């Protein structure tokens, strides 16, 4: 059986992150949470996650800065990132590269799971087609 996918949730709202964690663990993911951008970055550097759920507005280091440093560390778009945001930031999201998807708060957990699933499926397809 394939190893469980590791997900890093970065959101300064601890309980918001907890709710997602409970949901994702129930869906079979292994979840770590961080509550500011720097913590997220450090955790991601220590142990490379398979996907990151990233809040935009966070103390210490915001989502954008965190994303930039992640890209610098692992390579542009190496780790899929779903940004958790309020809707006025859409333009920036469209413009920023390296984001796989985004969720507008408040979102359905089911929707989030669907999107994550899709990302993993796509990545797996790409991996198998490039190295048959």
């Amino acid at each position, binding site marked *: 059986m394939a190893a469980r996918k590791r997900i890093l949730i970065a959101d300064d709202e601890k309980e918001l992150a907890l709710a997602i964690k409970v949901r994702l663990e129930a869906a079979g993911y292994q979840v770590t949470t961080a509550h500011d951008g720097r913590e997220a970055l450090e955790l991601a550097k220590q142990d490379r996650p398979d996907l990151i759920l990233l809040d935009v507005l966070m103390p210490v280091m915001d989502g954008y800065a965190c994303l930039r440093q992640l890209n610098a560390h692992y390579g542009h778009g190496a780790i899929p990132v779903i940004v958790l945001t309020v809707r006025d930031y859409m333009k920036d999201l469209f*413009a920023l590269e390296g984001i796989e998807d985004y969720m507008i708060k408040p*979102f359905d957990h089911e929707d989030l799971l669907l999107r994550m699933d899709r990302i993993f499926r796509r990545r797996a397809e790409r991996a198998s087609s490039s190295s048959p």
Partner: protein
Amino acid sequence: MTMTPVSVMLFEDDEGQATLTREALEQAGFLADVCSTGREGLKRMFEKTFQVFLIDIRLPDINGVEVLRRIKTIQPESVAIVVTGHGDETQAVEAMKLGADDYVVKSPYMGHLTALPVIIREGLDRRQLRHERQELETEVWEHARLLEERNAELRRANEELKRFTQLKSNLVTMVSHQLRDPLTTIKGFASILADKLAGPVTEDQGKYLRIIQANIDRLAGMINELLDMARMEIGPAQLRKSFVDLVPLTQAVVQTMRPLAEGRRIDVIVHLPHESPRVFADSERVGEILLNLVSNAIKYTPSPGRVTVTLEEREEEVQFTVSDTGVGIAEGDLPKLFEDLRKSRVEPAEAALQGLGVGLPMSRRLVELHGGRLWATSVKGEGSTFAFTLPKQDPDHVFRDHLQSGIERGRQTQGRVSLIAFSCAELGSPESPEEAGRIYDAVEQRLRLAVRRHGDVVLRWPGAALVGVLAQVGAEGAQRILERCAALLGETLVTSAGTRLDMRFDHACATYPEEGATDAELLVVLRRRLHRPDAQHASVMVIAAGERGTRVQEALGRSFTVIAASHGPDALEQLNRKAVDVILLDPEVPPTNGEALPDVLRNHPMSKHVPLMLLDEAFASWSPEDMAARVREALERQAGPSSETPPPDTGT
């Protein structure tokens, strides 16, 4: 015409004349006083009020003209008529200059006495008219002043109102954003409970949880409503327009909605034109509108179903159409969809469905702000179609418009307007236009990220360079933004292609009003700084007539792009349309409107920074190679002292 009799003072030293004149005046209904000397008369003025003064120019003590001057100083509104003898007309003229209302020449037989009352009445009438006119003028001035005061008050009130509206919008936006985090947490845990992830749930508990969830969705709908309300007030000025490629935008929106569609087993079919239409619009808003239409279509269509998104380009507009195979809407209910949320009560279930993008009333308003239309058609039981159009505009026109309105705004607010530009010489050669387009797209996106404030705009300048128009940004600010963009650009070029691209982007900025007073001037400055003309790309204007002109045009045409003009007006006309790097002028070309052509060119905004070379017989007798070398020298001299562009080794 006057109710009370008019008092006349008569300065007259001849007793006989005085008596006769007084009688004539009294007969005509005037009150008359006689003074035989100037001094006496001037003294009497302070004892009694006179409306009219008849002054004999020859008085024994003070000269009549001097008496007149003093009267005019003391009583400027009075009517003063000078009485002269034959031969004293020059003095009469002087008196008129000093403000006399009229003059009478004494006749030896006293004939002038019959004319006197008429002359006095005329003088009084003129005086009255002048007085009335002055009063009117004063009144008009007073009105103007009051109006100006009221305008200033209105302006102040208007500013205040704008500030409050902005404050309110900000507040609503802030609050509605901050409500989202706790709501997300509540929604998350409610669904965790309802989905029995935290243990078994009784039937009643399940029922109550569903009520909680319905109300969470209702609350989410209200927050969106609140946000739309705050944004409903936006005007055209708040749109952040730029040139938007609609195919990638449509693809991005549809991509976002795919998971939802797949989850609901809805097929999303997209019809896109081969060539991506480009409109001048607020990409974020257009994305939201489309997202709203597509997400609604997916949500209202029973599964399995189909949603079709079509983008069509027509001559003057583009049209987005989103059709579904949903339940449809009764014709009578269609207008309700577009009703302002503040006026109509939206059912909670419907509100909850407006999860993404902006609501329909807001969408329609946004489309209309762009100069387009949004409408819906539907057949109950078969499905609905929502469509909207956006007008197409000529990029060059839009660019100039923006530049001009930016400068106009700057002029009104004493503010600055800056242009920043990026250009890549390597991309100018059309070896791989696709690759060039892709790189420019990336650059454009970066530039837009760095330049995202109201009133700012990013445009692709005809001639492959990118220009950002920054409102209210001075030279220093523009330089900073330029550097930030350049840094971002380096990142993009490395990452977007995966491999390092050895490509140098020239960048430059120009600021109104220091560096140019009109859009044309700013563009010339910018072009000059941006583009160091090299031999292959330089445009040379040859202003010459006849055989010599033809010879030089042919010779230079081998090395440069030659623009030929046969006379001054022709040259100016072409300069307005196209910037050139060097101008060669035949001294035999006649002056334009009497002004020597070199002077005209030195003052013209499009040519004043351009090197001007003399095309005389000596020049024309050189070989084509020598001519080209001379032109190249002039180009190098021009580009040499400029230090706006960085040395090549720091590029990329």
